[in-house]
């Protein structure tokens, strides 16, 4: 057992944990967080493979490292889109609810303003 294998096992557990949270969490924010934990587990697995492939005086195989960097940026972009969708959805629902409670309020999109 060495440190790299330890990170490999951790990455496997993180994937399982993230998947569990992604499937079973009730709130959308929690599902976004779980999705990121799942993703980080996969990146870590890449990192373990990269570390094992270290040769030629570099700390690890630069190909997986570059893919991880690309992946981190794309994961951020996906999370940002998910977060904004979630916020927009909560606004629309709040507007619907306000409209339903108050029949005089028929102006469409009354709650559309961001706070």
């Amino acid at each position, binding site marked *: 057992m060495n*440190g790299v*294998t*330890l*990170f490999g096992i*951790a990455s*496997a*557990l993180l*994937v*399982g*944990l993230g*998947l*569990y949270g992604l*499937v079973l*969490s*009730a*709130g*959308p*924010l*929690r599902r976004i*967080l*779980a999705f*990121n*934990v799942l993703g*980080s587990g996969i990146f870590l697995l890449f*990192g*373990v*493979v*990269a570390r094992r*492939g*270290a040769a030629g005086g*570099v*700390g*690890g*195989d*630069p*190909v997986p*490292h*570059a*893919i991880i*960097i*690309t992946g*981190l*940026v*794309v*994961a*951020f*972009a996906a*999370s*940002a*889109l998910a*977060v*904004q969708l*979630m*916020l*927009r*959805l*909560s606004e629309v629902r709040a507007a619907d609810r306000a409209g339903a409670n108050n029949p005089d309020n028929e102006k469409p999109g009354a709650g559309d*303003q*961001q*706070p």
Partner: protein
Amino acid sequence: MMPGSMAELLFDSILVLTLLAVALSILALRQAFAAVLAFVTYGLLLAIAWVRLGSVDVALTEAAIGAGVTGVLLIAAASRLRRSIPIADKASPGIPMRIAVGALCATISAALVAAVLHLPTPAPGQALAAVANLPSTGLGNPVTGVLLAYRAIDTLLEAVVLVLVLLGDWSMAPDGQWGGRPGPRLAPEVNGPLGLLVSVLPPVGILIGIHIFWIGADMPGGAFQGGTILGAMWILTWMAGRTAPPHTSSERLRLVLVVGPALFLVAGFAGIVFAEAFLAYPEGWAKPLIIGIEAALTVSIAAALAMLVAGWPSREAPR
């Protein structure tokens, strides 16, 4: 076993256990806000793990994007959700469902553990090839070599993805707000801690961002890490009310957003004419071209990340 490697193993064990505990708390903490803070902590711990795994490049990216910008995005989202009606749109699943999903996830984890334990030795890899071909790019950092020369197509597509995601984000604008400013209107903070922070930090931060981009050619760093720091400085000036996010219809903003991917694409097509293939660099021109593309990418990434945090246009739509 050497005492030194024993100490390293101990350190790694503690780090891994802490990582797993914090990951568990992200999913288990009751308050959404606390879970988000746990996620930021998790990102910083992961950055340490990346240093332990020998990649300072990834560690910088993880700290800047995984913990930093994602943290700002999620903290803002959690505090806005707290003020609105909770949207738990799924009923809490029953015990049998939990057991079934738990068993499935445990199986996947176990399979991955088995795969990790049976990884081939010696490990196959591209490290030697990457280092051997590095002199032809003029770079000193093999990760930058992969990102901008060997696998430049991935990086090009990723830069395009950022623009597309931003378009998706802007498309959520309510009717009549298209082209307006995203984010809330904030009163400028002149005195107080935020005012002080925004007076002192951006000059230093901009310098550090450019430095990280520049040294990325030869040492850990690069367009993504540097661009993220620049974007963070821009967000900071919004938070303190010194500047506001620009109108999404602003031509200057749109130009800044596409200059990186556009230049990359032009250089790619120029490769067909002046070198052997798409995204190939003519001999002797690799380094100046890469630095030029990276400089443009840094600016575009900074703008795209900051605008993604700002959200969809919601006010001051242009007439």
